[in-house]
């Protein structure tokens, strides 16, 4: 058996390390299928991740890869992009990675419109470290650090990214792999900071504490909470509670950071007489 996936993975690393039914593998498949549709040269792609179960993705793809430190994938990726504007840089982060320890990097990468694609695997929990709640854990859900229920209000990552200045913002789920693949493809094609949040399942750390022990239970739940943008718009504020709109929310054009950086260098050279 040979599939399109096989052209992009480090086969000797499989079976992957993730728990049975973990959504990370579904997102990995969506990323690879999107890249295959774009026919990009593997050697021009750099995949960067931080620390977390989701960040293990960079160990499985046969691109140039970099596994960095928790929360800091975006700064490393920014450095790569600034050093070589021709590289296609993809950043894969967990919800904790992106919105807790890496939250500041996230808003500033969006604000500066750095030409990167950020894929945020939102399993709504710190999966790797045993189920601590994250800024994306829904209110009232349980975590090992919220044994009586989470009292925090969670970020809406889509709204956060739009407000901070991203060029492309979308949300998919692992239950809808075709839609997620096409959203990722559109994000990769976008110049500027593009974000795709993919709602994912962690049956072990999240499911166990929230009465969804099996991957199948978790996917049924995800199917239930995710509604199309159109349906979402017709819901009352009460009906929206606990639900997530999925689809594309923003696609706009504004100069990206590499472009502005090159312009300012030219300007400086001119003014300094070094043209």
């Amino acid at each position, binding site marked *: *058996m040979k*599939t399109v996936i096989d052209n992009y993975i480090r086969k000797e690393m*499989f079976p992957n390390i993730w728990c049975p039914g973990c959504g990370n593998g*579904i997102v990995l498949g969506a990323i690879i299928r999107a890249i295959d549709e774009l026919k990009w040269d593997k050697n021009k792609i750099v995949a960067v991740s931080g620390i977390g179960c989701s960040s293990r993705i960079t160990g499985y793809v046969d691109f140039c890869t970099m596994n960095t430190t928790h929360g800091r994938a975006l700064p490393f990726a920014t450095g790569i992009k600034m050093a070589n504007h021709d590289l296609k840089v993809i950043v894969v982060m967990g919800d904790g990675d992106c919105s807790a320890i890496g939250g500041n990097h996230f808003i500033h990468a969006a604000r500066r419109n750095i030409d990167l694609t950020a894929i945020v695997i939102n399993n709504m929990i710190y999966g790797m470290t045993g189920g601590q709640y994250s800024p994306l854990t829904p209110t009232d859900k349980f975590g090992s650090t919220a044994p009586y229920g989470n009292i925090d209000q969670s970020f809406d990552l889509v709204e956060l990214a739009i407000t901070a200045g991203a060029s492309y913002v979308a949300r998919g789920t692992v239950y809808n792999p075709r839609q997620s693949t096409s959203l990722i493809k559109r994000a990769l094609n976008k110049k500027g900071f593009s974000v795709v949040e993919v709602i994912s399942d962690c049956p072990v750390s999240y499911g166990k504490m929230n009465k969804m022990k099996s*991957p*199948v239970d978790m996917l049924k739940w995800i199917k239930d909470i995710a509604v199309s943008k159109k349906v979402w718009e017709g819901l009352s504020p009460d009906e929206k509670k606990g639900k997530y709109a999925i689809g594309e929310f923003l696609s706009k054009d504004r100069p990206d950071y590499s472009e502005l950086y090159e312009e300012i260098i030219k300007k400086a050279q001119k003014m300094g007489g070094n043209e």
Partner: protein
Amino acid sequence: MNQKKISEVYQNNSVKISVRREWCKSCGICIEFCPKDVLVPDDQGKPIPENIDACIKCGLCELRCPDFAITVEGVDKKDE
């Protein structure tokens, strides 16, 4: 059937379903969400396309498999 086989191929004259048994973790996702109930679990929880004739080649089992362990291909009818 031989449970030790690394990969199993099942086909009729319009579709070919392959299961990479070595990579499958028996999560049950492909089996549960197949719209046509094509797949049934074996004694290890790995999918067997017992109702392969009902398969509509939607490919969802392949796209939702977290372990790249199941693929669906349309068989080239010229080979029949």
